[in-house]
């Protein structure tokens, strides 16, 4: 069976027609369902043995649940980004195999044996660690979201990409295993740095871009992790195997992959990635720098343009994701009428700090059009703004940190589209 994904009307209708047929077949109560009354091949013959798949991938029927890229966004695919298929996932943990990738000079091959981590600068003893050394420090487990600062960045000037994967898919959420950066810094000795309050660390990767970023010491000593496992297994190559930095709640660009060096400094380097990129230009032409935290944000993942309603009116599960770089999500409201009235959604679990929170609105669809929106609140009391509120402060050219309320226009056919509303 081959399923095709096309967010176009033609593709949608084809998919909808197929599922209507399925529904009709099952619902025609007068006719016995052959899937029940006839002995099926899988109920009689045998399946695969335990040696068929030493490391498993999703079954072929899920082959449309994959990362996708938007070719016109970048000059080539090596210094580029792709998107997590959040419209097709549930729960909160992102499987590594479909978690978005962002590379500045490609995903490199780096063996554990060839891995080195250097700590230098204002430390008592500059040190070099092997991968095996890192596994001997006490380690911790934490679930955190990693969101690219440019997530939703194509939507500043207007509704542009038709699918939650493309508008909000530069995000993933994993359980990391790693060593707190403060433990490793302490091993090299911070006594030489003097007053730590005005110190920084500069972190860089082993790839050709090196993607260097400066992080204030306060954050470095707080919750930054030097991680080597995600969701229980080794990091994937595309996420920085064997070691990446995890900077909870802060923009993904700072989560340096293939981490090779941490330098304690008395000021920021002002590298390319923290000056020419990842700075947010305001309407008057001045730009904000050091915009590290990801503000509270949410999106309805289903229904959405790539996940239309195919079952007609009646019970409907509206679901989505919410997150905040400032702490835990405390509440998510959902509107079906473009923001006139709101209902408070059910959180699948209480929000966790700097991690994705799943919300559900278990509702009944009357088959009429809807303008679906979600609005997140975090533990600081911050309320996710509308696009108009954001534009009023920042104009249209910020590129980064667009955490606006998203609108999906769901039609009576169940088809959904990315729109902006008054």
């Amino acid at each position, binding site marked *: 069976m081959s399923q095709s994904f096309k967010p176009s009307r033609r593709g949608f209708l084809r998919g909808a027609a197929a599922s209507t047929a399925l529904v009709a077949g099952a619902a025609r109560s007068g006719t016995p369902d052959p899937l029940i009354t006839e002995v099926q091949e899988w109920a009689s013959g045998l399946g695969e043995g335990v040696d068929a798949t030493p490391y498993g991938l999703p079954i072929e029927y899920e082959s449309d649940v994959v990362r996708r890229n938007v070719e016109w966004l970048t000059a080539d695919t090596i210094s580029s980004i792709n998107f997590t298929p959040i419209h097709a996932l549930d729960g909160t943990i992102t499987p590594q195999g479909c978690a978005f990738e962002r590379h500045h000079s490609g995903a490199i091959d780096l063996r554990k044996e060839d891995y080195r981590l250097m700590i230098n600068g204002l430390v008592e003893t500059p040190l070099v660690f092997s991968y095996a050394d890192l596994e001997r420090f006490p380690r911790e487990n934490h679930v955190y979201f990693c969101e690219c600062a440019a997530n939703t960045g194509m939507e500043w000037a207007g509704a542009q990409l038709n699918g939650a994967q493309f508008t909000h898919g530069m995000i993933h959420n994993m359980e990391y295993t790693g060593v707190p950066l403060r433990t490793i810094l302490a091993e090299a000795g911070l006594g030489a740095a003097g007053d730590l309050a005005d110190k920084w660390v500069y972190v860089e990767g082993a790839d050709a871009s090196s993607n260097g970023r400066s992080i204030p010491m306060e954050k470095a000593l707080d919750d930054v992790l030097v991680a080597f496992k995600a969701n229980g297994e080794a990091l994937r190559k595309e996420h920085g195997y064997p070691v990446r930095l995890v900077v909870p709640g802060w923009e993904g660009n700072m989560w340096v992959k293939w981490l090779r060096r941490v330098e304690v400094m008395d000021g920021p380097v002002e590298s390319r990635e923290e000056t020419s990129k990842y700075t947010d230009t305001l309407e008057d032409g001045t730009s904000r720098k050091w915009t590290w935290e990801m503000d509270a944000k949410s999106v309805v993942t289903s229904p959405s343009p790539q996940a239309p309603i195919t079952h007609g009116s009646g019970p409907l599960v509206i679901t989505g994701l919410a997150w905040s770089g400032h702490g835990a999500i405390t509440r998510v*409201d959902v509107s079906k009428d473009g923001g006139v009235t709101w209902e408070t959604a059910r959180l699948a679990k209480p929000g966790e700090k700097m991690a994705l929170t799943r919300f559900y609105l278990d509702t009944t669809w009357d088959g009429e059009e809807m303008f679906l929106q979600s609005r997140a609140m975090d533990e600081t009391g911050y309320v996710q703004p509308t696009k108009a509120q954001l534009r009023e402060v920042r104009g249209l050219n910020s590129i980064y940190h667009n955490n606006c309320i998203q609108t999906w226009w769901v039609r009576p056919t169940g088809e959904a589209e990315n729109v902006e509303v008054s």
Partner: protein
Amino acid sequence: MSKFLKLCVALGILSTPAFAEGYGLGRPALPEEIAAWDIDVRPDGTGLPAGSGDVLTGEEVFADQCAACHGDFAEGVDNWPKLAGGWDTLADDDPLKTVGSYWPHLSTAWDYVNRSMPFGAAQTLEADEVYAIVAYILYSNDLVDEDFVLSDENLASFTLPNAEGFIVDDRIETEHSQWVGEPCMSDCKEAVEVTMRAMVLDVTPEQEASATEAAPEEVVEVAAVDPELITSGEKVFKKCKACHQIGEGAKNRSGPILSGIVGRPAGTVEGFKYSGPLKTMAEEGLVWDEESLTAFLAKPKAFMKGTKMSFAGLRKEDDLAAIIAYLASFPQ
């Protein structure tokens, strides 16, 4: 006590005995190792090696090493970054952010070119070449005259036009202060009208599911070619990937598609704009066989004066044999 100091004390960071002792893991970094990796350059010039480069030298190096993506005048090719122009556009509808119009510190340009450029051949430039390239970028931005020489002595004191164009993140004051509190739950607005639709713009990629529909990998029979040679050729090809694609689904980039290159007359990839020198040699009958490819890839600019291909060449004979075996493994 500040929140931060409390944190440090609580964590025992400030030289409490437990931390002073540590775990005894790792080993001291040697001075040579630190010198090899600690190459960051800061706005005050810290980290710059001694050296210099002038605009005219920079123009030559830029043409060889950078122009394939960034254009002869740093104006950018296709979607690759534009390095020059865009003055006074930052408050426009579509600002053009270049080294001249946007970057606050010249040290950043030096640091980035030195550590990460050229794309696909990072850290192959000499310090003087980096000074020369950065001098040429300044010249392309009309910020210096053609007799300008950039060096470790004057780089830090060079002020770029947008140096004062940045403010530290003020979202807490300007945004968080107003976007708080109990939000509206009913009668929040009078009417809802659609003001913009993504379908109208129609820029969303249409993609088929890949896994089941991907064509089975072509089995390539290449007689008497060592598969290990092809594998090492694939590694060498990483140097080419920034500009060239090969195999299923390959497209022309800044360089032409390379599928079927071995044994084919030069200059025959459809839709690719070849340089004048290549077209001339093609008219004279150049065929990309093992011999001509070896000569070209060893010293591109010696083999074809004026080629657009900005690649220094493969020095090792093993690499040359491997890359040609790899290219030959894609007969079409």
